[in-house]
């Protein structure tokens, strides 16, 4: 993927994350938004030609972005979302490894490092939220 395609995908994930976990939203509304976001990511990935792995990576990134708007237990869900991203990357890479693709070690190490360091975060300020989003975008576009 080119950095431009990655950047556009990142924007889509950010846009979808904006609507998730609103205080007044019910379980069904959140589930419908998640399913719709996944369908949108599938469509985008189909357009750029990597529909196998890319939609799920975008989904994980979307969940990471969405945790910044939570009001309770933000650190816990932040770590969980990053672990979920790591899980998708790890087992997806492992599946593709058997087809001859390289293992994306740098990306995995970067995500694991972010998840581990996030666990040490104290009260997450707006500035810290912004830093986290920058790190995620950097990992997404350049790794």
């Amino acid at each position: 993927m080119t950095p431009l395609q990655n950047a556009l995908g990142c924007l889509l994930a950010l846009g979808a994350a904006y609507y998730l976990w609103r205080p007044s939203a019910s379980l069904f509304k959140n589930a419908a938004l998640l399913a719709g976001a996944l369908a949108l990511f599938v469509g985008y990935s189909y357009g750029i030609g990597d529909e196998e792995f890319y939609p799920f990576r975008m989904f994980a990134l979307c969940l990471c972005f969405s945790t910044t708007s939570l009001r309770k237990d933000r650190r816990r869900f932040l770590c969980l979302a990053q672990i979920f991203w790591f899980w998708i990357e790890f087992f997806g890479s492992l599946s593709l490894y058997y087809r001859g693709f390289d293992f994306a070690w740098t990306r995995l190490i970067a995500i694991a490092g972010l998840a581990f360091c996030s666990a040490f975060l104290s009260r997450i300020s707006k500035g810290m939220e912004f830093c986290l989003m920058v790190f995620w975008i950097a990992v997404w576009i350049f790794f």
Partner: protein
Amino acid sequence: MSKILRLLGLFLLLPGLVALCASMQVGPASWYEGTNVFWGTPICLFVSWISLAHAGTLLSAVFLALGVRLDRRTALLAELSTLCSLCLAVMLPLVQLGVAEKVPSALTFMESSDGITHLGSPLFWDFCCIVVYGVLSFLFFHNHISSRNNPAQVIIRKPFAWLLLPLVLWVQSVVSLDFASTFFPEWQGAFFPIYFVVAAVYCGLALVNSLLCAEGYRVRLLEKMTAAGSWFVCVFWIWEFLTKGIFFSGVFVFAGVLPQLLWVSAVRNSRIGRFLVSLSILLGFFLERLYLISPEKGCLPFFGVVDVGLVSFTIGFFLLFYFGMRRSIGCFLDEEGTFFGDVDGSEMEADISATEKFDKENETVYVHPFTSEEFRTIRLPLLLGILAMLLFVLWEMNLSQSKPTLIEILPLTFPIVALVAGIALWIRSGVFREIPRRVLFVIMAFCILMSAISAIFFTVFSKDESEKVNGAGVSAVSMESRSIEIHEMLPERNNLVDVESEQSVGEEK
């Protein structure tokens, strides 16, 4: 109702046992199998029951870890269904072997030429992960039961839940690698792990909903999650159709379309309606597993008597085992003061309001990182688990004869951490204080004996091929040298004989 289901289980189990015997007698030819992979109905049933085994851990451990309220009886029943499904699933790969003579070698991993199975095989990862999952699920269930009499053991429930949460994802992902690491384009792909996990969670919800219907109760949260889960599964199948051109209408109808009937209040409020919807989900995913194994054949026209018998065996075994165990733990489920699902609304409301008040009081209390009570409980066991994992990795990569790569060892790392941490946590809960000393001594002696036997067994039989060849070569050389020595000795022997004969001739003269 429980008695009727036990009888039904017995009724299904008996012909199932006949089919099982026929299967072991005749071998793989007796059941439906994929033409390219020689995996058949037993593997299909194995994957199905492993998926269903996620019900208990999901609902009990994950909900506990994320702070979602679930009543105690539903959690216990869900955990019990996990254990019963796992016991059943473990037997099925042995049936897949086809002949009874292969079972001992499979149990001891004596498959490859050097006596130890290949560490990089997803099948080996599968076995290890499922064993760890079974052990920890059992310990979690035991802790849940024993905390009734000993409230001090409640302290390890949440840390245990945090260990089980990633393990659920890990186990199902490793099972998916059995398929994703092969050479069939329908199976290959990075999507397989996440699809397997979502499907497992969805099937697990359907199983627990059906068991609750059998109990005569309902949990509305689980019904909502089932309806919401069906949307994700539909998106997956649409995605699979767009990318790989694979679409199986039977699966889509049974597990994707029919669950939307839960939106109809007449179906949702009817016990039979909810049960039938759950059953359709389970049927849909069973058909999906069959299709997964052999897409070119379709399913039902090739489904024979032995296949039906094997399905009957698994269902009958589960019903008998589950409701039999349900009867034995009934005292924990039927005591006063524990509400069940949405039935006893008044007590549940009072309980919720008390809990919510407690939560509101604690909202203002900020918990610093790594200072929560859960973390303080689990940190030492987790450290032990990480140390054990590092020792294992170092030993395998440096001292083992097979010298696997890091990627081949990675799938085993977290299960080792979870196993050691879970056992350490369980020991820490003080459960051993309740066991008599004599019994404890016997258990420890048994564990030490089994470890010693396993170590001796693998040490004696795990010889490298080169050592075998060298050993044969060395013995051949030694035989040669020995024969040369004998041959060299022979002239001396001959001389001695000549001298003796001359002496005897001389004496005669």
